[in-house]
């Protein structure tokens, strides 16, 4: 069953077309990455799916329901952790579920433990490192009741070591709490390593350039990134992107 269907989305701001006839879909429990150059309209695509704006034309369906322009239908993890400094980690991770319904504190505590943030439940965000904040931010999106999670370049501000760590961590958590994930990134390795499918967007206006189905079996480990097969995929996607620049 299709979790998310994006059908022929077109959006322009001030007469410049940002998205043009973008269509794709995500299956239930699938991990799909959107890859594209910076400023290629990936964020705009997210804002449309999140319902912040209405598209000029085209529709969005979540769970088969038309949700074009409706807010609160996706769970969202932004680029910066966006944890509120006056809330403890526990209070922060239940924020998104609080917006939709009554939060479940015991489930949240459980999740914090699984995420390796045990002992920080009652700490404030300022007391955590960058990677830990992103973990908290991801738990927050997992605790939200919506079944589709949209991640907007969540690891782009982290250093290389923390980033690799976080990618493996994300996969391990995701394997346990299976959701449909739409992941936006401009990092080719990250996209291949994490995803079932990679969708390459072209630059200005953004169109779906090509779709790659990544065949690697799960669970995946970071050693995968050094295999010949992985590098072959990287090369192929890189060449696809090079055409665009």
């Amino acid at each position, binding site marked *: 069953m299709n979790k998310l269907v994006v059908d022929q989305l077109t959006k322009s701001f001030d007469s410049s077309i940002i998205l043009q006839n973008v269509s794709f879909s995500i299956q239930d429990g699938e991990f799909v990455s959107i890859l594209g150059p910076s400023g290629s309209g990936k964020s705009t695509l*997210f*804002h449309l799916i*999140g*319902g*912040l704006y209405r598209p000029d034309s085209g529709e969005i369906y979540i769970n088969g329901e038309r949700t074009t322009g409706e*807010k*609160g*239908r*996706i*769970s*969202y993890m*932004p680029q*910066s952790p*966006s944890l*509120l*400094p*006056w*809330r403890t980690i526990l209070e922060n991770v239940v*924020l*998104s579920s*609080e*917006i*939709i319904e009554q939060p479940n504190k015991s489930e949240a505590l459980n999740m914090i433990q699984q995420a390796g943030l045990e*002992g*920080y439940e009652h*700490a*404030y965000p*300022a*007391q*955590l*490192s960058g990677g*830990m904040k992103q973990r908290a931010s991801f738990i927050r999106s997992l605790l*939200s009741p919506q079944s589709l999670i*949209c991640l907007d370049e969540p690891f782009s501000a982290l250093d290389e070591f923390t980033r690799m760590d976080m990618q493996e961590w994300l996969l391990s958590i995701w394997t346990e709490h299976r959701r449909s994930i739409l992941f936006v990134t401009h990092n080719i390795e990250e996209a291949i390593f994490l995803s079932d499918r990679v969708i390459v967007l072209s630059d200005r206006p953004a169109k779906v350039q090509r779709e790659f189905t990544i065949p690697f079996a799960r669970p995946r480990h970071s050693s995968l990134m050094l295999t010949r097969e992985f590098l072959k995929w990287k090369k192929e996607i890189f060449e696809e992107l090079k055409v665009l620049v």
Partner: protein
Amino acid sequence: MTQRFIRGWRPVAVLLLFILLWELCSRWFDIPEWLLPPPSLILETGISSWADYAPHLFSTIRLTFLGFMIGACFGLLLAVLLHLLPSVREALYPLLILSQNIPIIVLAPLLVIWFGFGALPKLIIIVLVCFFPIAIAAMDGLRQTNPEWMHYMKMSGATKGQIFRKLEWPNALPSIFSGVKISAAYSVMGAVISEWLGANKGIGVYMTLASSSFRTDRVFVAIFLIMGLSLLFFLLINLLEKRMTSWQRKGGGVHE
């Protein structure tokens, strides 16, 4: 606590030195008491005439507290209203600033003419003095919400009310407290001014009576009472702030 004590010794030392100098000057130059009483006499008067001014003091405290509370609530309400209704804000903002350009000294007698010698004109003056710093600080605090957090809340489907309660309001609290502290200090002055212009009780009245009978020592007692009251009020608000925004002081720590 000890650290605060160690840091606090400098201003205390300067103050003590100043008082000592004052005392010595008034003795050496033989300044008449009605012109400038020495600190020792002020202290003596302060202790001996406690029974005289105590009712005045309590009346002023009551008036200040009531006026401050009304002013603070009014200021906060106004800020929230203007924040939520940008068009009203544009219309009222200039008026708000103009309200602070009214000379209180001139306004006060008029208020007495309109509303008599009761509590109402006095409360109006204190409210007028108090609401402004709070309203401005609260409006600024509400407006300066981190756009990233705002974006997150909107993407998560938060309603306007949820954004206000969960994001804008707690975010504005430190700023609001800056305004509240200024207002707290002003409110005592406001109360004293309002009492000057027609009251039968209060530090302001005590002060007018003392100065018209050349009891300069009592005037100084009144001055120090006003200063002490302002300080006390300020400290109370500070304490409240520390309790309500305790998260601000917890940076670093557990992780490092």
